[in-house]
Structures are given as C-alpha cells and as structure tokens.
C-alpha cells in the first residue's frame, strides 16, 4: 500500500543578480532622490501632494505680486525684496519643514525598516546624509524657485536702473545656509518620535517657541531702551539668525538691525553642529534597536 511520493521540487527559475553593483554612493544618491521626490508628494498619493504644492504656491504669491507691480506701476525699488524674502515668508517655510521632515524619517522608524536599509551597502551615516540632503534641497527649492521667478520677472520687465543681480545672488546664498540649518534641526527633532503627528507638532513647536521667545524679549528689551541686547534676542529665531549671517556675509540689507561681529555666525555653526550631533546619536541608538 505504499503510494508514490508526490512532492516534487520545481525549478522556478530563481537566478543570481549578475549585473553591475553600483555601490554605496549610488545607494545614497537613490535614497536622497527618492526622499526629495517624496517631500513634494511625487510618487505618493494625491492627498500627499496637496500640502507641498499649496505651500509652494503661497511662496510664489509675493513674487507674482511684485512682478505685476513692476510691470504695471513701473516701481523700481526692488532691492530689499530678495534678501528679506525668507524672513517675510518664514511661517510658510516653517510649515513646510514641519510637515515634511517627519515624513522623511518617521515611517522608517515606525515600521522598523531601518535595519533593511542598513543591510545594504548604506551605513547609518549615509542614511542620515541622504535624508538631510533631501530636506536641504527641498527647502532650498522652496525658496530658490520664487527668488528665481522674481529675478526672471525683473529681467523681462526690464525696468530702468541696474539689475539687482548681487541681491539675488546673496539671497540664493542665504537660502542655502537657511535650508541646511532648518534641515538639520527638522530631522533632529522629527527623528525623536516614530509618530508623524507628534513629529509635526514638535518641529512646529520649535519654530513657534523660538520666534515667540525672540519676539517677547525683543519687544520687552526695546520698550525699556536696551536696543543692543534686543538685537541679540532676535537671533533666537533661526530665520533672523540666518538673515543676520547673510547680511554680514554678503553686505545686503536686512529687515532688522542685528548685532555686529561674528556672534551670529558662531551661533549658527553651534546650532547646526548641535542638531547634527543629535541626529547621529539618535540614529546610532535607532540602528542597534
């Protein structure tokens, strides 16, 4: 009564990958590009595209209005528009940073896929570099696109008087510094929690807190006549901090009077280094968990 064995091992055609292996640099680049696309909602469902596109449109509004004013009213006083763009639009940039930095890091922590990334040639530092680079480029684009639109508008309207090329270049330089600082802070705060909602809340809490503290101390100190100290209080707000560095570095106008000397630059470097250390410590722990 012994029956014939029925189990058969089929060759279902699994094969080794024998093509070129692109290595670590390419993995970092691929992760960075994927993350950058995600911050603008590309490759994600339509609902994820609404907020980044809405924020980009809001960022473009002042540029559009200014170009219209130039074309219709022939208003030539434009120089201050470029260097102060970031400070004027700071709530919008802060919302973008708060909304998108948790998207970059929270799901990987929450669904515990970090070990999967790290089982590839990618290391912890590479992962962090890719994520920070993606957010830096995203924030830079958020600021650079309206500035460039404004500059192209200025070229096309062709007003009498010199072009503000220097102001435009300085604003773009400031945008790079701002984007890097905000990306480091955003990733550092967002990577603390695996929950997206809480991540958004903590990043925006950081911005609102620093800007409110800067505002309160500035108002109180100016009201009592200590204007020098009041200028230092402004630097608590990261947007004013970067504007202070930008105006010192490139010699362009600023929306406030800032303390002279290298103080602002040192605070900027210190804040950036602190955030970077925080991210590395966090991920050293997250990678082993």
């Amino acid at each position, binding site marked *: 009564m012994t029956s014939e064995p029925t189990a058969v091992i089929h060759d279902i055609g699994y094969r080794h990958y024998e093509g070129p292996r692109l290595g670590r640099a390419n993995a970092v680049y691929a992760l960075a590009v994927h993350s950058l696309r995600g911050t603008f909602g590309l490759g*994600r*469902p339509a*609902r*994820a595209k609404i*907020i980044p596109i809405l924020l980009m449109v*809001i960022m473009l509004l002042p540029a559009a209005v200014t170009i219209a004013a130039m074309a219709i009213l022939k208003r030539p006083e434009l120089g201050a528009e470029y260097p102060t763009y970031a400070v004027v639009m700071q*709530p*919008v940039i*802060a*919302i973008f940073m*708060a*909304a998108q930095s948790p998207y970059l890091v929270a799901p990987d922590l929450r669904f515990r896929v970090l070990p999967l990334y790290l089982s590839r040639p990618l290391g912890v530092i590479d992962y962090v570099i890719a994520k920070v680079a993606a957010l830096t480029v995203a924030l830079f684009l958020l600021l650079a696109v309206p500035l460039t639109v404004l500059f192209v508008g200025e070229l096309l309207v062709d007003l009498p008087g010199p072009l503000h090329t220097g102001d435009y270049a300085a604003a773009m330089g400031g945008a790079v510094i701002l984007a890097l600082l905000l990306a480091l802070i955003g990733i550092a705060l967002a990577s*603390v*929690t695996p*929950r*997206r*909602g*809480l991540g*958004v*809340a*903590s990043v*925006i*809490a950081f911005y*609102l*807190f620093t*800007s*409110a*503290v800067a*505002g*309160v101390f500035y*108002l*109180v100190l100016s*009201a*009592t006549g200590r204007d020098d100290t009041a200028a230092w209080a402004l630097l608590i707000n990261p947007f004013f901090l970067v504007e202070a560095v930008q105006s010192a570095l490139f010699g362009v106008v600023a929306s406030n009077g800032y303390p002279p000397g290298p103080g602002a630059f040192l605070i900027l470097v210190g804040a950036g280094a602190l955030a970077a250390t925080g991210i590395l410590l966090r991920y050293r722990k997250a990678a082993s968990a």
Partner: protein
Amino acid sequence: MNAVVADITYRAMLGRKRIWLLVLLPVALIGMAALLRAVDGPDEHTAVILMKTFAVGTMLPLLGLIAGTGVIAPEIEDGTIIHLLAKPISRPVIAVTKFAVAASLLVVFAALPTFIAAYLLTGAESGVAYGFTLGALFGGVAYAAVFLLLGVVTRHAVTVGVIYALVWEGVVGGYVPGARKLSIQQWAQSVADHFSTSPFFSTDVTLGFAVPAMAIVTVGALLWAGRRLRVLSLTGDD
C-alpha cells in the same frame, strides 16, 4: 461621558513623549515671566507683551493642537480606534469624552500657567492675570473642539491645524481685519480685554461677537466630530 474612555485617553496623553511638549511650553512661559521679573521687576506692559505674544499667541494654539489632535489622531493613524468603535458606546459620547480630556488638559497646562506667569509679573493689577487666564480658558476649550474635529476629519490634522493657526490667525489676521473676526486667538483676547483694564492692551473683536462665536464653534465642532466618527472609514493614506 465615559470614564473608561477618559481614563485610557489620559494615560495615552500623559504616559508618552507627548507630555514633554505639554510640559515644556508652560514651564518656559513661567520661566520667562520669572526671568523678566527678576531683571526688571513687576511691569504691566511686559506682562501684556508676554501674555499676548507668548501665552495666547503661541502657547495656547500649540497646546490646543497637541491636546486636541493628540486625544484621537494617533488612534486613528494606528487603526486601534477600531477596538474603541467596536464597543457599544455611542460615537458622539466618545467624541465628547475625548474633548473633555483635551479641554481639561488645556486648563491645567495652558490656563493655569498663564495665570501663574501673569500673576508673577503684575500681581492682581488691572485684572491682566484674571483676564488672560479666562481668555486662555475659553480659547483653550474652543481650540480643543476644533482640533479634535480636525483629527477626525483628516490624516494631516496637525499640518492643517498649524496652517490655520499660523497662516490664518497669524499672517492673514495681521493684514486683513475681517479675518480677525474668525480667529479663536482673537476671541480669547476679547475675553481677556473685557476683564482687564490695562491701557497697554486693546482688541478689535467685541465680546458680544466673541462669546457666541466660541460657543457655536465649540458645539458645532463637537456635533460634527460625533457625526464623522459614526461614518469613519479606516483607509490607508501613505
């Protein structure tokens, strides 16, 4: 109201990292008040600046956002809300209970520290401390209801709430006077203004508009949140 749901919600709010955000801001407010008092002594103008920009202008919407969305949004994100919804508890009761938890947290973490900070800076002078405390109290209740509704309606509740608080109340309200009529922050300030006689502080929304508006918004948001919970679908987002 359901005591078990309230108990679970309190534990979720106070037992995790969320509590640090709830604690840090009030501590910073009281710390700043103490610092300003130590440097300059009691000063009514300073108190009004601190209350208006920090307590009601920043801390209240932020805590409202954290408490209002925090009581429900994480459960919807996780999908664990299904266990709660599967129980024979009416959905509006769940909404009201969660709202009561959020509102009570705002009383403890927003209104009370506001009173302490203002009292540190002015004592009972000109009613600044009492006015802003009542403003924070009423504003906190309205924020809790509105942000709870947002937490039920959208997966991006925190982002949408931030856009409302920063762009609408902050930027648009700063330039367009009409937008100030539709701003919880301005309503809270109207209440504060009514009870204080400080010459450094005035608002442009009348109390006769602010109080009914707050009542309608709070009740309306709660009713809507209850309705939305009855038809909630747990589809994935991203």
